[in-house]
């Protein structure tokens, strides 16, 4: 039995107008998200993860800076066709977002109670007292002790973890169907990170919302995501379920990412693996495969022609010419090692 898709993104492209011409930060992304599912999006800095997530909410100014193409079907409705006012109703109410840096995501001049109440009062027409009740309830839900006291504090009086909980409370206050979490744990230390991840997973199970979880931390992905998309330079290079991501990574880029996780076991003085080079500029996107310049397996074909995203198994898709050969080679390599 197929689950109903909550969000379907079809060939989404986001172009930015810059002084040096138009650049395409998100270039033809297609994916879907089922209700109650947590999908991870991983990739290096500058590969378009955040642009993609903000495009889904249409947060870029369409008059001067950005242009969207493709389709974003949210519960069957194309968000790109909606008017500004309709979009405003959806933001915060049906789709919410958590940002990377919790302190700068909160307005310093208002108490956290004011800020949680605000979106309740915008979207749910609650009066101040009802909103206050609900706000305290939400704060409690995110695991802040003594929420009825904390609610009158200002953002700077809270620790980073607390601030991120407040952000989550704000984002979830209207019970959205989709939550976009844009690196919500990057600015936090590891123990707090684990708590926040648990919280998101727990609330996901409790409230049944879909979550798009953007991160560059594969450990985080392993922890809470069911499926993962690996992005590189504005495109999805691999889509897979979490188990296969680690057991059978297909794309050389994914392999590189996994290899660059520091290992606790094994030889001590081993140098940490890195992927050579950096993400190329979006101004001169390579002609062929976008990863070719950094790929150890690249050949002439890769430089000439861009591969398409093709299905490998029911749950795995990959954008690479040579993934089958690489898979074989690595398998031999590994068995000879043992």
């Amino acid at each position, binding site marked *: 039995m197929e689950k109903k898709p909550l969000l379907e993104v079809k060939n989404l492209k986001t172009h930015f107008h810059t002084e040096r011409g138009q650049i395409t930060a998100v270039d033809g992304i297609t994916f879907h998200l089922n209700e109650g599912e947590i999908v991870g999006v991983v990739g290096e800095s500058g590969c378009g993860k955040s642009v993609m997530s903000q495009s889904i909410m249409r947060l870029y100014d369409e008059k001067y800076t950005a242009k969207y193409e493709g389709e974003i079907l949210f519960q069957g409705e194309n968000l790109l066709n909606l008017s500004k006012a309709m979009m405003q109703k959806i933001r*915060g109410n049906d789709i919410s977002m958590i940002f*990377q840096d919790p302190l700068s995501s909160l307005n310093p*001049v208002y108490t956290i109670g004011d800020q949680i109440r605000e979106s309740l009062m*915008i979207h749910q027409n609650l009066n101040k007292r009802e909103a206050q009740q609900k706000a305290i309830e939400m704060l409690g839900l995110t695991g802040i002790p003594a929420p009825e006291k904390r609610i009158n504090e200002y953002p700077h009086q809270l620790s980073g973890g607390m601030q991120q909980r407040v952000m989550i409370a704000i984002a979830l206050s209207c019970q959205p169907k989709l939550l976009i979490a844009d690196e919500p744990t990057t600015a936090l230390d590891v123990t707090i990170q684990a708590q926040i991840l648990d919280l998101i997973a727990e609330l996901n199970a409790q409230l049944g919302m879909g979550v798009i979880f953007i991160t560059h931390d594969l450990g985080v992905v392993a922890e809470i995501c069911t499926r993962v998309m690996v992005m590189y330079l504005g495109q999805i290079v691999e889509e897979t379920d979490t188990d296969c991501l680690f057991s059978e990574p297909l794309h050389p880029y994914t392999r590189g990412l996994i290899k660059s996780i520091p290992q606790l076991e094994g030889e001590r003085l081993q140098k940490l693996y890195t992927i050579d080079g950096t993400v190329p500029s979006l101004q001169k996107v390579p002609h062929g495969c976008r990863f070719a310049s950094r790929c150890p397996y690249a050949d002439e074909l890769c430089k000439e022609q861009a591969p398409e995203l093709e299905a490998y198994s029911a749950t795995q898709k990959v954008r690479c010419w040579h993934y089958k050969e690489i898979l074989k080679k690595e398998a031999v390599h590994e068995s000879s090692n043992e």
Partner: protein
Amino acid sequence: MAAVKEVDRVRTIKASLKKQERQLFFRRFFANKLMVMGCFIFIVLGLIALIGPMLVSYDPYEMKVAERLNAPSGEHWLGTDEFGRDLLTRIVYGAQVSMGIGLIVTLISSILGLVIGLYASYYAALDHILMRICDGLMAIPGILLAIALMAALGPSPLNVIIALSIVFTPNIARIVRSSALVIREQTFIEAMHAQGASATRIIWQHIAPNTISPLIVQATFVFAEAIISEAALSFLGAGIAAPDPSWGNILQAGKLVIFKAWWMVVFPGLAIVLSVLGLNLLGDGLRDFIDPHSSGKKSK
């Protein structure tokens, strides 16, 4: 039982923290001696303007030819003017006019400047139009612009207010716009967009409160400048017309008799200097007081 005690303990700690915070606030406030002085001068002059007229015993308009140009004495503390009117009385009434106009001009240009600055910072198209108009107004020296406007409008207190408000609004609009431009790029504004807040809500609820402190600082300077400008206009005969007293036109009358009656220039001049000095000291102090980055340096 233990829990109750714990709650009490937390409560007393919180109360003492609040008290400490308040003490810290006052200590920081009083650490800046110049600001306290400015504040004091300003408050005294404000009180004089408010309740002074009730305290003086002469009529500011009643002429006594026999007593013209009397030097300061026990009867007329600051002497009399060329029509035999008590100078102290006229300066006190003049304070009401000069500071009243200063205050109203400050309020009007602050409110207009806030609106213009906020909308200019938010809408790029509006920004070009509004800021070019502001540039145009700011390109003309303020006093010249005020004189030109007064010549066009004709002298009356209301017109002085209109003219000076036009002169000072661009100042405030610039300040508000520049700090609003910084605020609107912050993540919490983006977060508010993501929460589905409307543009109006974002501008007034979230950007405006963050621009208030630079606005207040600038407003104190505008207040001071407005007092000088009003005095200058009245001195040049383009502001408050005699016989209504204003510091500027008392000074102008004094100019004609400067060698016979020094008090006619010294005292109204002193009133202007004191009020402007007080406001400038207050503004300078407030700037340091409000800006958290400078507090460390100033507390030495």
